[in-house]
Protein backbone atom coordinates (compact mmCIF):
# COMPACT_ATOMS: atom_id res chain seq x y z
CA UNK A 1 0.00 0.00 0.00
CA UNK A 2 2.77 2.39 0.96
CA UNK A 3 6.39 2.39 0.01
CA UNK A 4 9.13 4.89 0.83
CA UNK A 5 12.24 4.82 -1.33
CA UNK A 6 15.38 6.59 -0.16
CA UNK A 7 13.24 9.37 1.25
CA UNK A 8 15.05 12.52 2.37
CA UNK A 9 13.16 15.39 3.98
CA UNK A 10 13.45 18.01 6.65
CA UNK A 11 12.83 21.59 7.58
CA UNK A 12 14.77 24.19 5.66
CA UNK A 13 18.14 23.30 4.19
CA UNK A 14 18.98 20.48 6.62
CA UNK A 15 17.45 17.04 6.10
CA UNK A 16 16.16 15.21 9.14
CA UNK A 17 15.51 12.06 7.15
CA UNK A 18 18.55 10.76 5.33
CA UNK A 19 17.28 8.14 2.92
CA UNK A 20 14.48 6.12 4.47
CA UNK A 21 13.07 3.08 2.76
CA UNK A 22 10.19 1.13 4.16
CA UNK A 23 7.14 -0.80 3.04
CA UNK A 24 3.67 -1.04 4.52
CA UNK A 25 1.74 -3.91 2.90
CA UNK A 26 -2.02 -3.60 2.43
CA UNK A 27 -3.89 -4.57 5.60
CA UNK A 28 -0.76 -4.58 7.77
CA UNK A 29 -0.02 -2.73 10.96
CA UNK A 30 3.57 -1.53 10.80
CA UNK A 31 5.33 0.47 13.47
CA UNK A 32 8.26 2.80 13.39
CA UNK A 33 10.08 3.13 16.70
CA UNK A 34 12.92 5.36 17.68
CA UNK A 35 14.20 7.85 20.18
CA UNK A 36 13.17 11.47 20.49
CA UNK A 37 14.42 13.43 17.50
CA UNK A 38 15.12 10.39 15.33
CA UNK A 39 12.73 11.70 12.66
CA UNK A 40 9.54 9.75 13.38
CA UNK A 41 7.19 12.72 13.18
CA UNK A 42 9.03 14.09 10.15
CA UNK A 43 8.48 10.74 8.40
CA UNK A 44 4.72 10.80 8.95
CA UNK A 45 4.42 14.51 8.14
CA UNK A 46 6.23 13.91 4.87
CA UNK A 47 4.01 10.97 3.92
CA UNK A 48 0.92 13.06 4.77
CA UNK A 49 2.11 15.82 2.46
CA UNK A 50 2.80 18.48 5.09
CA UNK A 51 6.53 18.49 4.33
CA UNK A 52 7.92 18.33 0.79
CA UNK A 53 10.66 15.70 0.47
CA UNK A 54 14.01 16.90 -0.87
CA UNK A 55 14.61 13.60 -2.65
CA UNK A 56 13.39 10.04 -2.82
CA UNK A 57 9.95 8.69 -3.60
CA UNK A 58 6.72 7.95 -1.82
CA UNK A 59 4.45 5.42 -3.49
CA UNK A 60 0.85 4.99 -2.38
CA UNK A 61 -1.04 2.16 -4.07
CA UNK A 62 1.81 2.10 -6.58
CA UNK A 63 1.49 5.77 -7.53
CA UNK A 64 4.05 8.44 -6.66
CA UNK A 65 2.51 10.95 -4.23
CA UNK A 66 5.47 13.08 -3.20
CA UNK A 67 4.06 16.10 -5.02
CA UNK A 68 0.45 15.58 -4.00
CA UNK A 69 -0.87 18.20 -1.56
CA UNK A 70 -1.94 17.09 1.90
CA UNK A 71 -5.60 17.90 1.34
CA UNK A 72 -5.66 15.79 -1.85
CA UNK A 73 -4.06 12.86 -0.08
CA UNK A 74 -6.96 12.75 2.37
CA UNK A 75 -9.26 12.24 -0.61
CA UNK A 76 -7.07 9.41 -1.85
CA UNK A 77 -7.22 7.65 1.47
CA UNK A 78 -4.29 8.79 3.59
CA UNK A 79 -5.23 10.21 7.02
CA UNK A 80 -2.90 11.45 9.72
CA UNK A 81 -3.60 11.48 13.44
CA UNK A 82 -1.00 14.09 14.32
CA UNK A 83 1.33 14.29 17.26
CA UNK A 84 -0.31 16.16 20.12
CA UNK A 85 -3.77 15.28 18.74
CA UNK A 86 -4.48 18.78 17.36
CA UNK A 87 -8.25 18.68 17.73
CA UNK A 88 -9.88 22.06 17.08
CA UNK A 89 -10.25 23.11 20.70
CA UNK A 90 -12.91 25.79 20.22
CA UNK A 91 -15.14 23.59 18.08
CA UNK A 92 -17.61 21.01 19.38
CA UNK A 93 -16.71 17.34 19.45
CA UNK A 94 -19.28 16.61 16.76
CA UNK A 95 -18.01 19.41 14.51
CA UNK A 96 -14.49 18.03 14.91
CA UNK A 97 -15.74 14.67 13.68
CA UNK A 98 -17.72 16.21 10.83
CA UNK A 99 -14.73 18.23 9.62
CA UNK A 100 -12.98 14.87 9.31
CA UNK A 101 -15.52 14.01 6.60
CA UNK A 102 -14.97 17.31 4.77
CA UNK A 103 -13.75 15.68 1.56
CA UNK A 104 -16.69 13.29 1.35
CA UNK A 105 -19.98 13.88 -0.37
CA UNK A 106 -21.57 10.44 -0.01
CA UNK A 107 -24.60 9.75 2.14
CA UNK A 108 -22.80 7.52 4.63
CA UNK A 109 -21.38 10.32 6.77
CA UNK A 110 -24.16 10.08 9.34
CA UNK A 111 -23.72 6.31 9.57
CA UNK A 112 -19.96 6.71 10.04
CA UNK A 113 -20.54 9.30 12.76
CA UNK A 114 -22.75 6.78 14.52
CA UNK A 115 -20.00 4.15 14.15
CA UNK A 116 -17.42 6.48 15.74
CA UNK A 117 -19.83 7.18 18.60
CA UNK A 118 -20.34 3.44 19.07
CA UNK A 119 -16.60 2.91 19.26
CA UNK A 120 -16.01 5.86 21.58
CA UNK A 121 -19.06 6.31 23.77
CA UNK A 122 -17.36 9.15 25.65
CA UNK A 123 -17.45 11.20 22.47
CA UNK A 124 -21.18 10.72 22.14
CA UNK A 125 -21.73 11.88 25.71
CA UNK A 126 -19.67 14.98 25.03
CA UNK A 127 -20.60 15.68 21.47
CA UNK A 128 -21.85 19.21 22.16
CA UNK A 129 -18.84 20.14 24.31
CA UNK A 130 -15.82 22.02 23.09
CA UNK A 131 -13.03 19.62 22.21
CA UNK A 132 -10.59 21.68 24.26
CA UNK A 133 -12.49 20.91 27.45
CA UNK A 134 -11.86 17.19 27.24
CA UNK A 135 -9.12 15.11 28.80
CA UNK A 136 -6.05 14.08 26.80
CA UNK A 137 -7.34 10.55 26.31
CA UNK A 138 -10.71 11.78 25.07
CA UNK A 139 -8.98 14.18 22.70
CA UNK A 140 -6.91 11.29 21.36
CA UNK A 141 -10.10 9.31 20.73
CA UNK A 142 -11.49 12.37 18.97
CA UNK A 143 -8.37 12.75 16.82
CA UNK A 144 -8.62 9.09 15.79
CA UNK A 145 -12.36 9.43 15.20
CA UNK A 146 -11.78 12.51 13.06
CA UNK A 147 -9.29 10.60 10.90
CA UNK A 148 -11.69 7.64 10.58
CA UNK A 149 -14.43 9.96 9.33
CA UNK A 150 -12.41 10.37 6.12
CA UNK A 151 -12.64 6.57 5.58
CA UNK A 152 -8.88 6.18 5.18
CA UNK A 153 -7.22 3.23 3.51
CA UNK A 154 -3.99 4.11 5.29
CA UNK A 155 -4.04 5.55 8.80
CA UNK A 156 -0.90 7.28 10.06
CA UNK A 157 -0.74 7.52 13.84
CA UNK A 158 1.82 9.82 15.37
CA UNK A 159 2.55 8.95 19.01
CA UNK A 160 -1.02 8.31 19.96
CA UNK A 161 -0.03 7.22 23.46
CA UNK A 162 1.96 10.30 24.36
CA UNK A 163 1.15 11.84 27.71
CA UNK A 164 -1.70 9.47 28.52
CA UNK A 165 -2.32 7.34 31.61
CA UNK A 166 -1.40 3.64 31.22
CA UNK A 167 -5.03 2.47 31.28
CA UNK A 168 -5.94 4.93 28.51
CA UNK A 169 -2.87 3.90 26.53
CA UNK A 170 -4.07 0.29 26.60
CA UNK A 171 -7.53 1.39 25.43
CA UNK A 172 -6.04 3.38 22.56
CA UNK A 173 -3.84 0.49 21.43
CA UNK A 174 -6.76 -1.91 21.61
CA UNK A 175 -8.73 0.48 19.42
CA UNK A 176 -5.88 0.73 16.92
CA UNK A 177 -5.77 -3.03 16.72
CA UNK A 178 -9.53 -3.20 16.12
CA UNK A 179 -9.33 -0.59 13.37
CA UNK A 180 -6.57 -2.62 11.73
CA UNK A 181 -8.61 -5.82 12.05
CA UNK A 182 -11.45 -4.11 10.20
CA UNK A 183 -9.15 -3.68 7.22
CA UNK A 184 -7.49 -0.28 7.56
CA UNK A 185 -3.76 -0.36 6.92
CA UNK A 186 -1.81 1.32 9.71
CA UNK A 187 1.59 2.90 10.08
CA UNK A 188 2.20 3.98 13.63
CA UNK A 189 5.05 5.87 15.12
CA UNK A 190 5.74 5.40 18.82
CA UNK A 191 8.08 6.05 21.64
CA UNK A 192 6.25 3.39 23.57
CA UNK A 193 8.07 0.67 21.61
CA UNK A 194 6.87 -2.31 23.61
CA UNK A 195 3.18 -1.46 23.15
CA UNK A 196 3.68 -0.59 19.51
CA UNK A 197 5.49 -3.84 18.73
CA UNK A 198 2.86 -5.81 20.60
CA UNK A 199 0.12 -4.77 18.18
CA UNK A 200 2.19 -4.41 15.00
CA UNK A 201 3.16 -7.21 12.67
CA UNK A 202 6.36 -5.61 11.47
CA UNK A 203 8.62 -2.91 12.84
CA UNK A 204 11.31 -0.50 11.70
CA UNK A 205 13.81 1.19 13.96
CA UNK A 206 14.65 4.77 13.15
CA UNK A 207 17.91 6.24 14.38
CA UNK A 208 19.12 9.75 13.48
CA UNK A 209 17.13 9.87 10.26
CA UNK A 210 18.09 6.38 9.06
CA UNK A 211 16.53 2.95 9.36
CA UNK A 212 18.90 1.04 11.65
CA UNK A 213 16.92 -2.15 11.95
CA UNK A 214 13.76 -3.92 10.91
CA UNK A 215 12.01 -7.20 11.36
CA UNK A 216 8.89 -9.01 12.40
CA UNK A 217 7.51 -7.36 15.53
CA UNK A 218 7.90 -10.53 17.58
CA UNK A 219 11.58 -10.80 16.60
CA UNK A 220 12.25 -7.18 17.49
CA UNK A 221 10.64 -7.68 20.87
CA UNK A 222 13.16 -10.46 21.52
CA UNK A 223 16.20 -8.80 20.01
CA UNK A 224 18.78 -7.97 22.71
CA UNK A 225 19.82 -4.69 21.04
CA UNK A 226 16.25 -3.47 20.69
CA UNK A 227 15.43 -4.46 24.24
CA UNK A 228 18.47 -2.62 25.53
CA UNK A 229 17.94 0.52 23.45
CA UNK A 230 14.17 0.97 23.33
CA UNK A 231 12.36 -1.38 25.63
CA UNK A 232 14.19 -0.70 28.89
CA UNK A 233 14.10 -3.06 31.80
CA UNK A 234 10.43 -3.11 32.72
Amino acid at each position, binding site marked *: MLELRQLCAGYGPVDVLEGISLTVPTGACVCLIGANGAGKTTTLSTIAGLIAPSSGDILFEGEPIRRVA*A*EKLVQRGV*SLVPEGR*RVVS*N*MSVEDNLLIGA*YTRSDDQIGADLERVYQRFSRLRERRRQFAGQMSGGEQQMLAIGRALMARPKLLLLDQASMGLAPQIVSDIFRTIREINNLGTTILLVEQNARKALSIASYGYVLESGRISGEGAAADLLNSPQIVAAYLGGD
Partner: protein
Amino acid sequence: MSTFLQQLVNGISLGSTYAVFAMGCTLIFGVLNIVNMAQGAFFMGGAYFGLEAAQLGLPAPLALVVALLGGGLLGVLSELVIFRTLRARGGHRWMGLVASLALARMLVGVAQEAFGTQVQRYPASPLLQISWEFGGVRVQFLQVVILVVSLLLMAALAFLLQRSSVGRAIRTVAFSEDVARIVGVPVGRTILITFFLAGALAGASGMLLGNLFNVVSPFMGEQMLVKGLTVIILGGLGNVPGAVAGGFLLGLIEVFSVAYVSSSFRDAIGFGLIFVILLVKPNGLFSSFEERRA
Protein backbone atom coordinates in the same frame (compact mmCIF):
# COMPACT_ATOMS: atom_id res chain seq x y z
CA MET B 1 -37.06 59.17 29.95
CA SER B 2 -38.19 59.71 26.39
CA THR B 3 -34.73 61.08 25.54
CA PHE B 4 -33.25 57.92 26.92
CA LEU B 5 -35.60 55.67 24.95
CA GLN B 6 -35.09 57.73 21.81
CA GLN B 7 -31.33 57.34 22.10
CA LEU B 8 -31.76 53.65 22.77
CA VAL B 9 -33.67 53.28 19.48
CA ASN B 10 -31.09 55.33 17.59
CA GLY B 11 -28.17 53.54 19.21
CA ILE B 12 -29.50 50.08 18.43
CA SER B 13 -30.02 50.79 14.74
CA LEU B 14 -26.64 52.53 14.44
CA GLY B 15 -24.93 49.78 16.45
CA SER B 16 -26.40 47.07 14.25
CA THR B 17 -24.53 48.49 11.23
CA TYR B 18 -21.31 48.63 13.28
CA ALA B 19 -21.88 45.03 14.27
CA VAL B 20 -22.28 43.88 10.67
CA PHE B 21 -19.12 45.74 9.65
CA ALA B 22 -17.12 44.42 12.60
CA MET B 23 -18.13 40.81 11.95
CA GLY B 24 -16.23 41.03 8.67
CA CYS B 25 -13.15 42.54 10.31
CA THR B 26 -13.05 39.95 13.07
CA LEU B 27 -13.60 37.08 10.62
CA ILE B 28 -10.47 38.04 8.69
CA PHE B 29 -8.53 38.42 11.89
CA GLY B 30 -9.72 35.07 13.20
CA VAL B 31 -8.67 33.22 10.08
CA LEU B 32 -5.50 35.02 9.04
CA ASN B 33 -4.39 36.85 12.16
CA ILE B 34 -4.17 40.07 10.21
CA VAL B 35 -6.11 43.29 10.34
CA ASN B 36 -7.35 44.06 6.85
CA MET B 37 -7.09 47.85 6.64
CA ALA B 38 -9.06 47.82 3.38
CA GLN B 39 -12.30 46.76 5.09
CA GLY B 40 -13.25 50.44 5.41
CA ALA B 41 -12.75 50.89 1.67
CA PHE B 42 -14.96 47.84 0.99
CA PHE B 43 -17.56 49.49 3.19
CA MET B 44 -17.35 52.66 1.10
CA GLY B 45 -17.33 50.59 -2.09
CA GLY B 46 -20.49 48.78 -0.99
CA ALA B 47 -22.22 52.10 -0.34
CA TYR B 48 -21.42 53.21 -3.91
CA PHE B 49 -22.35 49.86 -5.46
CA GLY B 50 -25.71 50.16 -3.72
CA LEU B 51 -26.04 53.80 -4.74
CA GLU B 52 -25.32 53.10 -8.40
CA ALA B 53 -27.78 50.22 -8.38
CA ALA B 54 -30.45 52.37 -6.75
CA GLN B 55 -29.84 55.18 -9.24
CA LEU B 56 -30.26 52.69 -12.06
CA GLY B 57 -33.72 52.10 -10.67
CA LEU B 58 -33.21 48.83 -8.83
CA PRO B 59 -35.47 48.42 -5.80
CA ALA B 60 -33.70 48.78 -2.43
CA PRO B 61 -33.50 45.04 -1.60
CA LEU B 62 -31.80 44.34 -4.93
CA ALA B 63 -29.49 47.33 -4.47
CA LEU B 64 -28.49 45.82 -1.13
CA VAL B 65 -27.67 42.56 -2.88
CA VAL B 66 -25.51 44.52 -5.33
CA ALA B 67 -23.72 46.22 -2.39
CA LEU B 68 -23.19 42.83 -0.76
CA LEU B 69 -21.83 41.19 -3.89
CA GLY B 70 -19.76 44.25 -4.81
CA GLY B 71 -18.14 44.32 -1.37
CA GLY B 72 -17.54 40.57 -1.60
CA LEU B 73 -15.90 41.01 -5.00
CA LEU B 74 -13.54 43.65 -3.59
CA GLY B 75 -12.69 41.28 -0.75
CA VAL B 76 -11.93 38.43 -3.16
CA LEU B 77 -9.79 40.67 -5.37
CA SER B 78 -7.79 41.94 -2.39
CA GLU B 79 -7.03 38.37 -1.35
CA LEU B 80 -6.07 37.27 -4.85
CA VAL B 81 -3.97 40.31 -5.72
CA ILE B 82 -2.42 41.26 -2.39
CA PHE B 83 -2.72 38.88 0.53
CA ARG B 84 -2.23 35.60 -1.32
CA THR B 85 0.75 37.00 -3.21
CA LEU B 86 2.37 38.20 -0.01
CA ARG B 87 1.75 34.88 1.76
CA ALA B 88 3.24 32.96 -1.15
CA ARG B 89 6.42 34.98 -0.77
CA GLY B 90 6.51 34.37 2.94
CA GLY B 91 5.81 38.00 3.71
CA HIS B 92 5.49 39.05 7.31
CA ARG B 93 1.96 39.86 8.35
CA TRP B 94 2.88 43.50 8.86
CA MET B 95 3.33 43.57 5.10
CA GLY B 96 -0.30 42.59 4.68
CA LEU B 97 -1.30 45.37 7.02
CA VAL B 98 0.63 48.00 5.10
CA ALA B 99 -0.39 46.62 1.71
CA SER B 100 -4.07 46.64 2.69
CA LEU B 101 -3.69 50.23 3.88
CA ALA B 102 -2.27 51.08 0.46
CA LEU B 103 -5.19 49.30 -1.21
CA ALA B 104 -7.61 51.33 0.92
CA ARG B 105 -6.01 54.58 -0.25
CA MET B 106 -6.13 53.44 -3.87
CA LEU B 107 -9.82 52.56 -3.65
CA VAL B 108 -10.58 55.95 -2.09
CA GLY B 109 -8.71 57.56 -4.99
CA VAL B 110 -10.65 55.50 -7.53
CA ALA B 111 -13.93 56.46 -5.85
CA GLN B 112 -12.96 60.14 -5.91
CA GLU B 113 -12.26 59.95 -9.63
CA ALA B 114 -15.33 57.89 -10.45
CA PHE B 115 -17.93 59.53 -8.24
CA GLY B 116 -16.41 62.91 -7.28
CA THR B 117 -15.71 64.12 -3.77
CA GLN B 118 -19.22 65.54 -3.37
CA VAL B 119 -21.43 63.83 -0.87
CA GLN B 120 -24.17 61.83 -2.59
CA ARG B 121 -27.53 60.58 -1.35
CA TYR B 122 -29.71 57.56 -1.99
CA PRO B 123 -32.87 58.22 -4.02
CA ALA B 124 -35.62 59.22 -1.60
CA SER B 125 -37.98 56.40 -0.78
CA PRO B 126 -41.35 57.44 0.64
CA LEU B 127 -41.73 54.06 2.28
CA LEU B 128 -38.49 54.30 4.25
CA GLN B 129 -39.36 57.78 5.46
CA ILE B 130 -42.43 56.60 7.32
CA SER B 131 -42.02 56.97 11.05
CA TRP B 132 -44.12 56.27 14.10
CA GLU B 133 -44.27 57.90 17.50
CA PHE B 134 -44.71 56.01 20.70
CA GLY B 135 -44.96 58.29 23.74
CA GLY B 136 -42.48 60.84 22.44
CA VAL B 137 -40.13 58.27 20.94
CA ARG B 138 -39.85 58.43 17.17
CA VAL B 139 -39.05 55.23 15.30
CA GLN B 140 -38.32 55.44 11.59
CA PHE B 141 -39.22 52.59 9.29
CA LEU B 142 -35.67 52.95 7.93
CA GLN B 143 -34.25 52.20 11.38
CA VAL B 144 -36.40 49.11 11.66
CA VAL B 145 -35.37 47.92 8.22
CA ILE B 146 -31.69 48.46 9.03
CA LEU B 147 -31.99 46.55 12.27
CA VAL B 148 -33.86 43.69 10.65
CA VAL B 149 -31.42 43.43 7.74
CA SER B 150 -28.48 43.51 10.16
CA LEU B 151 -30.01 40.80 12.33
CA LEU B 152 -30.64 38.67 9.24
CA LEU B 153 -27.01 39.05 8.17
CA MET B 154 -25.84 38.09 11.67
CA ALA B 155 -28.10 35.06 11.70
CA ALA B 156 -26.93 34.06 8.23
CA LEU B 157 -23.28 34.31 9.22
CA ALA B 158 -23.86 32.45 12.49
CA PHE B 159 -25.67 29.69 10.63
CA LEU B 160 -22.94 29.47 8.02
CA LEU B 161 -20.12 29.32 10.58
CA GLN B 162 -21.81 26.97 13.03
CA ARG B 163 -23.84 24.66 10.84
CA SER B 164 -22.28 24.36 7.41
CA SER B 165 -19.33 22.47 6.05
CA VAL B 166 -17.80 25.74 4.81
CA GLY B 167 -18.18 27.22 8.30
CA ARG B 168 -16.44 24.27 9.92
CA ALA B 169 -13.67 24.62 7.33
CA ILE B 170 -13.28 28.33 8.14
CA ARG B 171 -13.09 27.61 11.87
CA THR B 172 -10.59 24.83 11.29
CA VAL B 173 -8.33 27.05 9.15
CA ALA B 174 -8.61 29.71 11.87
CA PHE B 175 -7.39 27.13 14.39
CA SER B 176 -4.48 25.84 12.29
CA GLU B 177 -3.75 25.63 8.59
CA ASP B 178 -1.88 22.36 9.04
CA VAL B 179 -4.81 20.78 10.84
CA ALA B 180 -7.08 21.97 8.03
CA ARG B 181 -4.82 20.34 5.46
CA ILE B 182 -4.66 16.97 7.21
CA VAL B 183 -8.45 16.74 7.25
CA GLY B 184 -8.58 17.67 3.56
CA VAL B 185 -9.73 21.29 3.77
CA PRO B 186 -8.37 23.37 0.85
CA VAL B 187 -6.84 26.26 2.79
CA GLY B 188 -6.51 28.73 -0.09
CA ARG B 189 -10.11 28.37 -1.18
CA THR B 190 -11.37 28.65 2.40
CA ILE B 191 -9.44 31.88 2.91
CA LEU B 192 -10.89 33.20 -0.35
CA ILE B 193 -14.41 32.45 0.88
CA THR B 194 -13.59 34.24 4.14
CA PHE B 195 -12.52 37.33 2.22
CA PHE B 196 -15.72 37.21 0.19
CA LEU B 197 -17.81 37.05 3.37
CA ALA B 198 -15.85 39.86 5.06
CA GLY B 199 -16.09 42.07 1.96
CA ALA B 200 -19.80 41.34 1.57
CA LEU B 201 -20.49 42.24 5.21
CA ALA B 202 -18.50 45.46 4.81
CA GLY B 203 -20.34 46.30 1.58
CA ALA B 204 -23.76 45.63 3.10
CA SER B 205 -22.99 47.72 6.17
CA GLY B 206 -21.80 50.53 3.87
CA MET B 207 -25.17 50.66 2.18
CA LEU B 208 -27.00 50.41 5.51
CA LEU B 209 -25.07 53.24 7.13
CA GLY B 210 -25.17 55.26 3.93
CA ASN B 211 -28.96 55.04 4.16
CA LEU B 212 -29.11 55.71 7.90
CA PHE B 213 -27.14 58.96 7.64
CA ASN B 214 -28.15 59.49 4.01
CA VAL B 215 -24.56 60.32 3.13
CA VAL B 216 -22.24 58.53 0.73
CA SER B 217 -18.74 59.85 0.21
CA PRO B 218 -15.36 58.42 -0.82
CA PHE B 219 -14.05 59.10 2.69
CA MET B 220 -16.80 57.39 4.68
CA GLY B 221 -14.75 54.22 5.10
CA GLU B 222 -11.86 55.71 6.99
CA GLN B 223 -13.69 56.52 10.16
CA MET B 224 -15.58 53.26 9.89
CA LEU B 225 -12.35 51.30 9.80
CA VAL B 226 -11.28 52.79 13.11
CA LYS B 227 -14.70 52.00 14.54
CA GLY B 228 -14.44 48.47 13.27
CA LEU B 229 -11.09 48.08 15.00
CA THR B 230 -12.56 49.48 18.21
CA VAL B 231 -15.40 47.01 18.07
CA ILE B 232 -13.27 43.94 17.41
CA ILE B 233 -10.99 44.89 20.28
CA LEU B 234 -14.07 45.40 22.45
CA GLY B 235 -15.43 42.03 21.44
CA GLY B 236 -12.15 40.14 21.41
CA LEU B 237 -10.10 39.68 18.24
CA GLY B 238 -11.55 36.92 16.09
CA ASN B 239 -14.66 36.57 18.23
CA VAL B 240 -17.77 36.91 16.05
CA PRO B 241 -20.43 37.09 18.80
CA GLY B 242 -18.13 39.54 20.58
CA ALA B 243 -18.04 41.73 17.48
CA VAL B 244 -21.84 41.81 17.40
CA ALA B 245 -22.09 42.76 21.07
CA GLY B 246 -19.26 45.27 20.68
CA GLY B 247 -20.95 46.85 17.64
CA PHE B 248 -24.19 47.46 19.50
CA LEU B 249 -22.25 48.71 22.51
CA LEU B 250 -20.25 51.23 20.48
CA GLY B 251 -23.40 52.45 18.72
CA LEU B 252 -25.15 53.01 22.04
CA ILE B 253 -22.13 54.68 23.64
CA GLU B 254 -21.78 57.09 20.72
CA VAL B 255 -25.43 58.04 20.67
CA PHE B 256 -25.63 58.48 24.43
CA SER B 257 -22.46 60.52 24.62
CA VAL B 258 -23.88 62.88 22.00
CA ALA B 259 -27.16 63.15 23.88
CA TYR B 260 -25.82 63.47 27.40
CA VAL B 261 -22.30 64.84 27.02
CA SER B 262 -21.51 66.63 23.79
CA SER B 263 -21.20 65.70 20.15
CA SER B 264 -17.60 66.91 20.26
CA PHE B 265 -16.79 64.05 22.60
CA ARG B 266 -18.51 61.32 20.59
CA ASP B 267 -15.34 59.84 19.12
CA ALA B 268 -13.21 60.73 22.12
CA ILE B 269 -15.42 58.62 24.34
CA GLY B 270 -15.71 55.79 21.82
CA PHE B 271 -12.01 55.52 21.21
CA GLY B 272 -11.11 56.28 24.84
CA LEU B 273 -12.89 53.01 25.47
CA ILE B 274 -10.29 51.03 23.55
CA PHE B 275 -7.65 52.28 25.91
CA VAL B 276 -9.63 51.45 29.03
CA ILE B 277 -10.56 48.02 27.75
CA LEU B 278 -7.02 47.19 26.75
CA LEU B 279 -6.03 47.97 30.33
CA VAL B 280 -8.78 46.02 32.03
CA LYS B 281 -9.56 43.15 29.65
CA PRO B 282 -6.79 42.79 27.08
CA ASN B 283 -8.58 39.93 25.32
CA GLY B 284 -11.83 41.82 24.92
CA LEU B 285 -14.94 42.15 27.04
CA PHE B 286 -16.34 38.79 26.08
CA SER B 287 -13.18 36.76 26.03
CA SER B 288 -13.32 33.22 27.20
CA PHE B 289 -11.22 30.30 26.19
CA GLU B 290 -13.85 28.67 24.00
CA GLU B 291 -15.03 31.65 22.05
CA ARG B 292 -11.86 33.48 21.29
CA ARG B 293 -11.74 32.55 17.65
CA ALA B 294 -14.30 32.57 14.88
